[in-house]
């Protein structure tokens, strides 16, 4: 039981070949591109969803911030599709690996902060000190604000990793418990099964919400800095 729980999180290799690359590239197969005005149902659905998301998320930015639309929309599509595919049985979810989430969070956060420092230096530095602080508190507060700035990419990555990993682990554990209980007491197994169904619905929601939160936070950091 102990070893089985975490075997679904190891990087998939086959005969020493990195199969994980193929698994990360797989969601791109599910988003076909099309040049037509009127498309098939799959592409139309995806275009509708993309339009909804981009209007909702990018309307708060100015012209300079809206140049990031392509990046943020592909980010939310990637994280959403990877998380949802991870809910299929036996599949591997790349977003459970901290390495990958750090690789997504740090460059995006650094890009937003450095854009802010280059283009609006005074305003970016002013973020370190909120308005109306009493004078004796200033040194402390600058240190605290610096720490809170540098913790942003770590928080982005760890939030995504922890949420998805915890959800998958819970599903494994409760599923195992249901199976083990069927021979002992079918009523308890039924209750556990209902808990499993509720948990799966939660996981569907979490998969999409986490993608949204990640992208929203990056866009907020961007808004601060453009």
């Amino acid at each position: 039981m102990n070893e089985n729980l975490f075997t679904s999180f190891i990087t998939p290799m086959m005969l020493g070949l990195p199969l994980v690359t193929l698994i990360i590239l797989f969601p791109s197969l599910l988003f076909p591109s099309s040049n037509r005005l009127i498309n098939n149902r799959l592409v139309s659905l995806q275009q509708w969803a993309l339009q909804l998301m981009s209007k909702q998320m990018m309307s708060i930015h100015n012209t300079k911030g809206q140049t990031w639309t392509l990046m943020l929309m592909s980010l939310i599509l990637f994280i959403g599709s990877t998380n949802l595919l991870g809910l299929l049985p036996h599949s591997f979810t790349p977003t459970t690996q901290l390495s990958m989430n750090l690789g997504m969070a740090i460059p995006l956060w650094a890009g937003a902060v450095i854009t802010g420092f280059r283009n609006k230096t005074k305003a970016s530095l002013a973020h370190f000190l909120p308005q109306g602080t009493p004078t004796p508190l200033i040194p402390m507060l600058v240190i605290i604000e610096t720490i809170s700035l540098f913790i942003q990419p770590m928080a982005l990555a760890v939030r995504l990793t922890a949420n998805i990993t915890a959800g998958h682990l819970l599903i494994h554990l409760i599923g195992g418990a249901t199976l083990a209980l069927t021979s002992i007491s079918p009523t308890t197994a039924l209750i556990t099964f209902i808990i499993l169904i509720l948990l799966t619905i939660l996981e569907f929601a979490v998969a999409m919400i986490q993608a949204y939160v990640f992208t929203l936070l990056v866009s907020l950091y961007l808004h601060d800095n453009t």
Partner: protein
Amino acid sequence: LASLMNLMEKKLLEVKLGELPSWILMRDFTPSGIAGAFQRGYYRYYNKYVNVKKGSIAGLSMVLAAYVFLNYCRSYKELKHERLRKYH
């Protein structure tokens, strides 16, 4: 040789069993050839099941079912130990 020209134009199901080794050896195994094969396969599936006027959920679900099956094959070695057997 006339039989070689005939062989190149046939698809797999039309090749006779005796001609199979020469048919396999005749295929294009360069990287661009393999990429072309994947591309042709992708578009064959896409145009038959997804890129139609009234595509249904079956087009997407077949892909996901194949994905689940391939992942099962990949992790069979660890899943073997979870069968209900007296001796593993």
